[in-house]
C-alpha cells in the first residue's frame, strides 16, 4: 500500500513545522575511518564508550561473579522495593499524559510536518511496533501470569509474624471465590501488559519522533532533551544519555536472548527430545543471531518489516486456533468480562502508596515497570523510526490503545484457556509446569498438538529475531550520532556483539541473571528521563501549528 509511495521521489515541502535552529550539525562529532577493508562512520565518543563499558561489565561479571551478583541483586531489590511508589506513580502519569494527548487539540499535530504522509501502511507499521514492543514475553507469560495471579488470589491473604503480607495475591485476593479470583487474576495480568507499558513506549517514541521529524534534531535519545539542556545536549550530558540507552538496550537484548535460548531449549526438549544443555543453547543463540543478521543486512523494509509481518501472521494464526479449538464462547465472554474487570480493578491496582499487597506491587508491578522502562529507549526509538507521517492522535491510539487491546485479547485467550482447563477439567499440567513449558502443556490439551507446539517454538524464535534485529538498528543509529545511513559493517558488528555477549553470559554461572538485575535497575534513572520527556513533548507540541 503506501509503502510503495515513498520511493516516488520527495514529497513536496511537507507543510509547516517548527525546526529548532541549532548550531549543531548532524555527524559533526562523527569519525569516518577505515578499519581493514571496512569503512566506518561512528559517533565520538558514544560508540567507543558504549562498546568498551559493555565489555568491561561483562568482564567484571565473569571475573568476580559473586561480588557482581551480590551488588546487582542488592541494586535490583533497592530499586524495585524502595521505589515502587515512584514507578507506579510515574506509570499512571504516562497513561494519563497519553490519554490527554488524544483528546486535546495537540493530537492534530502531524509527525514530519503538517502535510507529511505515512511511511508505512497500518499493517506493516503495527506489525513492527508490536514485534519490537512485546515480543517474547507474550509467549512465556501469556499462560503463566494469569495462572499465577489466579492461584494466589484463590489462596487468599496470609499475614506473616511481622504484620506484613507474605502471599503474592494482588489487592485483597479473592479467597475461595473462584469466579472473582479469575477476574482479579486477569485484571492483575492485563494491568501489566495493557495501557501502562504501551504508554511508556509511546512517550519515548513520541518524544524522539517529534524532535527528529518536526524539529530537525538527530534521531538519537539525547535530542528529546534539547528543550531542557539546550545546546549542552551535544556535549557530555548527551553522551551519558546515549551511552546509557545503548547500555540498557544491548544488555536487555543479550540477557533476554540468553534466557530465551534456555526456554526455547526446554520447549524443544519437550517436543523433540533435543537434549537440554549449553551446547544446544549456544547453537540456538547462534541461529537466532544469524537470522537477525540476515534481517539487518536486508534492511528495514526487506528484512525487519518482512519478519515482523511473518511474526504477526503466525501469532494471529495461533491465537485464532486456540480461540476456536478451546472453549470459544467461554473465551469470548471471558474477554469482555476480563476487560471489565480490568477497568474495575485498575484504580486500586495503580495506587502508588500504602499498598498491603507488597509482594504483588513490588515483586510484580514494580519489577515490570522497571523492566518496560529499561526497554523503552530501544522500543521507543524503533517505533519513532517507523512512525513518520502519523498525527499525534493517530499515533497514540495505535501505540497505546490498539496494542493494549491485543494484549488483553492474547491474555484472555491463552490464560483463559489454561485457567478453564484447571477449573473445568481439573487438568493441572499447565499449572504445575515450569514457566517455559506452560504454553506447551496448555496446547497439549487442544487438538493438533504437534503442529501448534511447533508453531509455538517457531514463534518463540521469530519473536527473538524481531527484537534482536530492530535492537541492532537502534544501537547502530545511536552510536552513529543519529545517522541512519552508517555503513553496513556497523550494524553487523552490533548484532554479532549482542549474540556474543549473550553466549559469554550464558556460559558463566549466574552471569545472565545478575546482569539482567542491573539492566532492570536502569529503569530508575530512565523513569526520571521519561517524566522529563513528557514535559518536553508538551512544550514541543505547543510550538507546532495545529
Amino acid at each position, binding site marked *: 500500500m503506501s509503502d510503495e509511495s*515513498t*520511493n*516516488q*521521489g*520527495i*514529497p*513536496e*515541502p*511537507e507543510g509547516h*513545522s517548527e*525546526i529548532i535552529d541549532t548550531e549543531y*550539525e*548532524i*555527524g559533526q562529532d562523527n569519525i569516518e575511518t577505515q578499519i*581493514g*577493508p*571496512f*569503512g566506518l562512520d561512528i559517533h565520538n565518543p558514544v560508540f567507543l564508550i558504549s562498546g568498551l563499558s559493555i565489555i568491561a561489565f561483562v568482564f567484571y561479571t565473569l571475573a568476580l561473579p559473586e561480588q557482581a551478583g551480590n551488588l546487582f541483586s542488592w541494586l535490583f531489590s533497592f530499586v524495585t522495593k524502595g521505589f515502587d511508589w515512584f514507578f507506579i506513580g510515574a506509570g499512571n502519569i504516562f497513561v494519563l499524559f497519553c490519554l490527554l494527548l488524544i483528546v486535546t487539540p495537540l493530537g492534530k499535530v502531524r509527525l*514530519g*510536518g503538517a502535510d507529511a504522509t505515512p*511511511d508505512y501502511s497500518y499493517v506493516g507499521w503495527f506489525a513492527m511496533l508490536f514485534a519490537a514492543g512485546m515480543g517474547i514475553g507474550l509467549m512465556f507469560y501469556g499462560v503463566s501470569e494469569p495462572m499465577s495471579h489466579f492461584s494466589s488470589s484463590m489462596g487468599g491473604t496470609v499475614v506473616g509474624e511481622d504484620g506484613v503480607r507474605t502471599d503474592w495475591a494482588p489487592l485483597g485476593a479473592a479467597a475461595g471465590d473462584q469466579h472473582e479470583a479469575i477476574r482479579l487474576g486477569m485484571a492483575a495480568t492485563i494491568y501489566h501488559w495493557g495501557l501502562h507499558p504501551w504508554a511508556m513506549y509511546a512517550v519515548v517514541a513520541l518524544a524522539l519522533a517529534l524532535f*527528529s*521529524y518536526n*524539529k*530537525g*534534531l*538527530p*534521531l538519537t535519545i539525547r535530542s528529546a532533551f534539547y528543550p531542557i539542556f539546550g545546546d549542552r545536549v551535544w556535549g557530555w550530558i548527551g553522551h551519558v544519555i546515549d551511552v546509557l540507552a545503548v547500555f540498557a538496550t544491548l544488555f536487555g537484548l543479550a540477557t533476554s536472548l540468553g534466557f530465551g535460548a534456555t526456554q526455547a531449549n526446554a520447549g524443544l526438549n519437550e517436543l523433540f527430545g533435543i537434549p537440554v544443555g549449553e551446547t544446544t543453547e549456544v547453537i540456538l543463540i547462534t541461529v537466532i543471531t544469524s537470522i537477525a543478521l540476515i534481517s539487518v*543486512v*536486508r*534492511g*528495514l*523494509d*526487506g*528484512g525487519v518489516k518482512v519478519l515482523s509481518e511473518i511474526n504477526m501472521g503466525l501469532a494471529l494464526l495461533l491465537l485464532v486456533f486456540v480461540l476456536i479449538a478451546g472453549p470459544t464462547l467461554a473465551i469470548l465472554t471471558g474477554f469482555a468480562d476480563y476487560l471489565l474487570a480490568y477497568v474495575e480493578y485498575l484504580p486500586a491496582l495503580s495506587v502508588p502508596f500504602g499498598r498491603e499487597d507488597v509482594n504483588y506491587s513490588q515483586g510484580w508491578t514494580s519489577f515490570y515497570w522497571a523492566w518496560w522502562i529499561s526497554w523503552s529507549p530501544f522500543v521507543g526509538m524503533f517505533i519513532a*523510526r*517507523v512512525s*513518520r507521517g502519523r498525527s499525534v492522535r493517530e499515533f497514540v491510539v495505535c501505540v497505546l490503545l490498539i496494542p493494549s487491546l491485543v494484549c488483553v485479547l492474547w491474555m484472555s485467550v491463552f490464560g483463559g484457556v489454561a485457567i478453564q482447563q484447571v477449573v473445568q477439567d481439573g487438568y493441572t499440567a499447565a499449572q504445575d509446569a515450569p514457566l517455559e513449558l506452560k504454553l506447551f502443556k496448555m496446547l497439549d490439551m487442544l487438538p493438533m498438538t504437534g503442529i501448534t507446539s511447533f508453531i509455538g517454538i517457531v514463534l518463540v524464535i521469530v519473536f527473538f529475531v524481531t527484537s534482536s534485529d530492530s535492537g541492532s538498528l537502534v544501537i547502530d543509529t545511536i552510536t552513529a550520532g*543519529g*545517522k*541512519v*545511513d*552508517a*555503513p*553496513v*559493517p556497523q*550494524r553487523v558488528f552490533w548484532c554479532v556483539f549482542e549474540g556474543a555477549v549473550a553466549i559469554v553470559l550464558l556460559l558463566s554461572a549466574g552471569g545472565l541473571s545478575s546482569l539482567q538485575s542491573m539492566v532492570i535497575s536502569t529503569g530508575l534513572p530512565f523513569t526520571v528521563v521519561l517524566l522529563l520527556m513528557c514535559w518536553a513533548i508538551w512544550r514541543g507540541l505547543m510550538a507546532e501549528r495545529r
Partner: protein
Amino acid sequence: MFTTIVVPVDLAHEDKLGKALTVSADLAKQYGAKIIYLGVTSAMPGKLGHNPAEYAEKLQAFAAAQAAKFGVTADAKAEVSHDPTIDLDKTLMKAADAVGADLIVMASHVPGLADYIWPSNGGTVASHSKASVMVVRG
C-alpha cells in the same frame, strides 16, 4: 546516442565526485543530453538537511551550480529511502528507470577486499541496471 544521463551524487562526499561530474558533463555536451543529478536521503534529519524538503532544495542548488559551471541542461531528483544503507542501489535504479535514463555515470572507489562481501554501489548498479552504466574510479 544518449538523451538522459543520470548522475547519482552523495552530497556529503562531494569531493569524491569530481571525475564523474566532469565526464558526465562532457558526455552531455557531446550528445546534447540532459543531466539529472540523483540523490538519496532518509526521512531522518541528516547533515544535508533537517528533512527531505531541505535536502531536495540543496540538491536543486547543486544541479543549478553544475549546469552553470559546465554549460549543460541539468535537473535534480531527490529520493527518500527508509534505510539508505541497504536500499541505496535499489532506490537509485528505480529512480533512474522512472526518469528514463539511458546512461548512468557513477563515481566509485577502487575495489578492495570488502567488495567481495559488500559490492560497491557502482558495481551493483552496473550489474543490474537496464541503462548503460559508466563507473568512474578514483
